[in-house]
């Protein structure tokens, strides 16, 4: 098969994405480590795109991390998910949008299982009623939050203040993307572009003016592995997986890494720091790391939002080299300010990894 043919395989994997009136379910990991990404997502939808997106304070963890740590049965997990659907049903907004890939994968898995085993759906309904006296409808549509940005990528690009173009060379920035295993490895037809050639992030990068760089370990796991990271004794697995990706992508000199899953940007950011401390290795230019962005942060960057509103100051790998390449102004004196504009001190500098 010719490469050009392969590059268009993603077109076989499309799905319906609702145009408006969403129910938003937040991500535990994204809220902990990338809080501004969720804030930005809602800002873009409401202020830039004029969409209605509803949330309910009563929604909780979907138990995805707990389920994949093998702590609960599928009965527990599917009933917690049924409760999330109950909140969605109450709201009247049946286009469910998950901020988390683990959640998205799990919702997909549960809905698929209920198709194959209707008695399990009945069981979920009975257990939910017994526990909470709640009932639910299934979502009219299910999307990961990145699907929504993908759907409106051209509208966003039309409003953008910056393109992913290197200011000095005039060339498109080179971007590697990391899709997150549970987006489409389990159910390829539920993700834009499928599992082998997922297009959800590629579509954004291309719309925003960048160039996607292919590399051998593009589809390798970041190494979260649930118990493989949470338990300290297992983290060799986690860091080795990320390291394999860094070693594979570095020869292609990517300007940044774009991520889909809430956990992956954390690991791809922090393991670069850990590797630099352990081995003295840095993967970016001039002693820096390779900047890692969430798709919400990228969207905010091209729309010209203040980098510190986007939370880029909470990355361990400095993002400033990327901002410099695009020509985005930033004020370092504003970087480490608290909520009322007060200076709250600077973080310690890593011993190897260069930061601003």
């Amino acid at each position, binding site marked *: 098969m010719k490469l050009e043919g392969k590059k268009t395989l993603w077109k076989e994997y499309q799905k319906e994405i609702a145009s408006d009136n969403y129910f938003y379910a937040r991500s535990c990991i994204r809220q*902990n480590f990338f809080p501004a990404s969720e804030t930005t997502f809602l800002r873009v939808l409401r202020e830039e795109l004029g969409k209605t997106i509803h949330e309910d304070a*009563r929604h909780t963890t979907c138990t995805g991390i707990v389920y994949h740590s093998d702590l609960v049965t599928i*009965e527990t997990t599917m009933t917690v998910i049924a409760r999330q659907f109950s909140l969605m049903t109450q709201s009247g907004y049946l286009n469910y949008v998950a901020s988390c890939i683990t959640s998205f994968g799990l919702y997909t898995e549960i809905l698929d299982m209920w198709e194959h085993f209707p008695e399990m759906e009945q069981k979920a309904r009975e257990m939910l009623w017994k526990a909470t006296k709640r009932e639910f409808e299934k979502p009219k549509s299910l999307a990961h939050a990145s699907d929504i940005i993908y759907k409106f990528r051209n509208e966003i690009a039309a409003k953008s203040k910056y393109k992913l173009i290197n200011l000095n060379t005039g060339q498109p920035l080179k971007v590697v993307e990391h899709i997150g295993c549970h987006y489409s490895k389990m159910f390829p037809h539920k993700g834009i572009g499928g599992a082998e050639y997922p297009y959800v992030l590629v579509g954004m990068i291309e719309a925003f003016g960048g160039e996607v760089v292919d590399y051998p370990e593009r589809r390798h796991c970041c190494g979260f592995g649930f118990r493989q990271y949470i338990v300290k004794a*297992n983290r060799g697995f986690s860091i080795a997986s990320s390291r394999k990706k860094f070693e594979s992508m570095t020869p292609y000199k990517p300007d940044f890494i774009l991520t889909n899953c809430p956990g992956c940007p954390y690991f791809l950011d*922090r393991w670069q720091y850990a590797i630099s401390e352990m081995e003295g290795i840095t993967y970016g230019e001039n002693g820096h790391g390779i900047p890692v962005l969430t798709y919400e942060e990228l969207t905010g960057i091209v729309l010209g939002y203040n980098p510190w509103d986007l939370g880029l100051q909470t990355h361990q790998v400095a993002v400033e080299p990327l901002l410099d390449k695009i020509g985005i102004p930033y004020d370092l004196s504003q970087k480490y300010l608290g*909520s009322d504009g007060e200076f*709250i001190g600077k*973080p310690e500098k890593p011993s190897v990894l260069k930061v601003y």
Partner: protein
Amino acid sequence: MGRLIDKLHQDIRYEEGMNACINCGTCTAICPAAEFYNYDPRQIMIDVQSGNEEKIEELLKGEAIWYCGECMSCKTRCPRNNTPGLIIMALRAVSQELGCFTESEKGRQQLVLKRTVGEWSLKYGYCMYPEALTTTNFPEQGPIWDWEHANLHMVMKRLGANYQGEGNGVLRRIPQDALDEIYKIFEVTGGLDRFENIEECSRKKAEEMGMGFDETHNNEYFDYIFTTNNGDHQK
């Protein structure tokens, strides 16, 4: 105890994940865990499919079933639509149900997971919570997290979060009635029973190993299972 293979068959994930494995080894080739650990999902599929009770019991008490990271890369590539990752989940469930998990170093770690992401889910409504995450236990979070952690409320507010606040938003305080509903779901669906079983089996194992054990994260057994790696897990 009944036949182990029958127990596996009762798990819906076994039915979803096993469709006459042809032992081609594609799962092992693609598996990130197989690259790192002394782990071969193909062999596990062979052993489970054989229905050999001794081999299944060996799996339930051994290290191998705990190496998988549940990335589910195996599902994408299997030419017969098997999912070794789902078979691993079914094996882990039976291992915990029968108390076999405390027989292996990696299996014993279930107590750490239960007392962290498991309990945080019930206590906070989030499987992770920033107050509980420190660079002592997660040093790779780096100095940036120390800064963020020391200024948590101010940084969260700066980034638009509603940390521990009422109403909607990032890291809002989940209302108590919602937490009560989640607790009740765990109670009705057997989630609490699983948690209690992990505790009880772990307590017995700690006693057998002559290690201190209490309900906190600061006891000899907890620290041992959180940090110990005998170095025998890799190829």
